[in-house]
Structures are given as structure tokens and as C-alpha cells.
């Protein structure tokens, strides 16, 4: 009987550790970035960032993303128009703006895109994102 009770108590710290880990996951930017990506980007760019034929450019292994990580924040906020060449293919289809997304949300999406799938690009800090957004052309 006694032995049984002791066994139960030893589970409590474990529970705390589990909750803590869950907490870390739920509140981490990565998790939020993925959820925001799924909601606002995946219907066009695809769950795996694969794009769609000549209609929508990829975000996974995109040379555009690699070359201009500082432009992604602006593209999310203001959309994109006109011709753009990604991985040697020309795309020309308007991408809509996302004026409803906050700076923090944009930062989470940018950092998700930079590191998701096969992408392994350096994160952008909140300060960098702020600067990126101040320098948008539109």
C-alpha cells in the first residue's frame, strides 16, 4: 500500500516537466509561425512551400527567399505584383496583401519560412523585421 503511494508521488515532477515542454512548444514562435503560415500562405504556396506550377512560386528552396530574406516581411504585408523570377522560372500573378497581420505575426511567419522544409537560413531578429518593414517600397 505504502509502496504504491510513493510510486504515484514520483510522477508529479514528471508531469511538471511535460507541462513545461508543452508550454515551450505552444508559445514558441515556431509553432505560431507554422499555424500562421498554414492559415495565410499554404492555400497558395502549399503545405510544403512547393508552389503551384507556373502560377505560384515556391518558398521551399527558393533562390528568391535565399537572396532577399529582408524582403519577405514587406511581401507579406503589402503583397507582390509584376514579374518575378524564382529558380529560373518567371511568375507573374498578383499576391494579395495582409494588412491585418501584426509585426510580431509577420516575424513569426518570416522565421518559419526561413527554416521550414529544406530551408536552413538564419533567423531574422525582431529588430531586423522592424527595419525590413520600414524600408518597404510600396
Amino acid at each position, binding site marked *: 500500500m505504502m509502496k504504491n503511494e510513493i510510486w504515484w508521488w514520483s510522477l508529479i515532477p514528471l508531469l511538471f516537466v511535460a507541462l513545461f515542454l508543452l508550454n515551450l512548444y505552444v508559445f514558441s514562435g515556431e509553432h505560431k509561425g507554422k499555424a500562421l503560415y498554414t492559415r495565410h500562405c*499554404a*492555400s*497558395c504556396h*502549399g503545405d510544403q512551400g512547393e508552389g*503551384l*506550377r*507556373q*502560377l*505560384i512560386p515556391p518558398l521551399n528552396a527558393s533562390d528568391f527567399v535565399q537572396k532577399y530574406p529582408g524582403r519577405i516581411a514587406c511581401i507579406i504585408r503589402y503583397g507582390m505584383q509584376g514579374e518575378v523570377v524564382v529558380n529560373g522560372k518567371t511568375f507573374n*500573378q*498578383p499576391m*494579395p496583401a495582409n494588412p491585418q497581420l501584426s509585426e510580431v505575426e509577420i516575424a513569426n511567419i518570416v522565421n518559419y519560412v526561413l527554416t521550414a522544409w529544406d530551408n536552413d537560413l538564419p533567423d531574422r531578429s525582431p529588430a531586423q523585421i522592424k527595419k525590413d518593414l520600414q524600408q518597404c517600397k510600396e
Partner: protein
Amino acid sequence: MKYSLKKTFWVAGLLLACVACKQEERRLPYLGEKKVVAKEDGSGVDTVYHQIPPFRFVNQEGQTITDKDFAGKVYVADFFFTTCPTICPKMSAEMLKVYEHFQDDERVLLLSHSIDTKYDSVPVLKAYAEKLGVSAPKWHFVTGKREDIYDIAEYYMVTAGEDPAAPGGYIHSGALILVDGQRHIRGVYNGTDPEDTKKLIEDIELLLKENASVHDEK
């Protein structure tokens, strides 16, 4: 003991036969309102299934497309617009899987109606189809009179409408609708769910078999 073993075999045999017959009999339902009407010669009643009415639209090549182009074929219809900011590219991606699966089978066609008849002109539709890498007569992207598109959407049992509050200015359903050679609706699938597309492809195969046997009977 011997008796019960025999019985077991019997039951198992019957069960197997039943499973086999069930599988053969799986037929797609007729969706929409049914009407029961008296036969013209007064010999009883007939069931009349919901049917897509005759139509006439213009496709991405500027050609007039009517219900006659789809007679006897199995086709998948949807409603979209080229500048749609939400679900359309996903729907197109799923339709594309159907297109590729039945690429060499001329009994299967696709029909996408633009609900943005102002912006989606023939050249705009043509450019969209080209970017997707698809072409008529397998996949028609059509436009027409605004009312005609919205009226026919009702027959396909999907919502479509202008709504300034909605993203892109239009609301519409993401459904892919499976229609048989007699213009009866035989299935509705979620055009944003890859699992549903697998089911759609299976159902098309089923419908093709049924269509073939209908022709044999005639």
C-alpha cells in the same frame, strides 16, 4: 462437431459472397432533389433526378462550350476566380491531380467556372490555364454572363456570390462536383482536402464503369 463445422463454413461462405456482391454493387448516389412523376403512358411512375440544365459558356480559347460537349462524359465542375486570395489555388491544385490522373482518358473532363466575370476575361483565363500547364478540351475554364454563372452554381448546389467584405470580393464554396454523362450530380468533394481528391478519383473510375454498362444496355 462435424455439423457445427459445416455450419461455420456455410456462414463464412455466405458472408464472403455478400461482401463480394456488396462491392460490385457500390453505386454512387444521385444527389439533389428527386421528383416522382407519372409516366406519360400512365403505366406507373418514374423517378426524375436533379439535373444540371443546358448551358452555354465561353472557354479560355474563346470557343463556345455547351452541355453537348459534356454529354456522355464524366466531368468535375468547380467555381473559382483567378485573383482569389484564399482557397482557389488549392482547389486548382486538387483539380490538377484529377487532370493528370485522367490525362489520356477522353471520357473525363474538367469545367471551372469563373465567378468574377468582370475581371476574368478570355485572355485572363487562358493565361491562368497556361500557368497551370493545362489546356482545353480536357479542362475548360469558362466565363459568361454573370447571372448565367450564378444561376448554374445553384444547380450545382454550391454557394457563389459577390461580397465586398469577403477576401477578394467574392464568396464561394470550395466544392468539386462530380457529374455523370446525363448531367446528374453523383458526388461532392472538398476541393481543399487531398484525401477527398483520392476519393473523387476512385468515384470517377466507378462512374466510368457504370457509364460503360449503361451504353451496353442501350
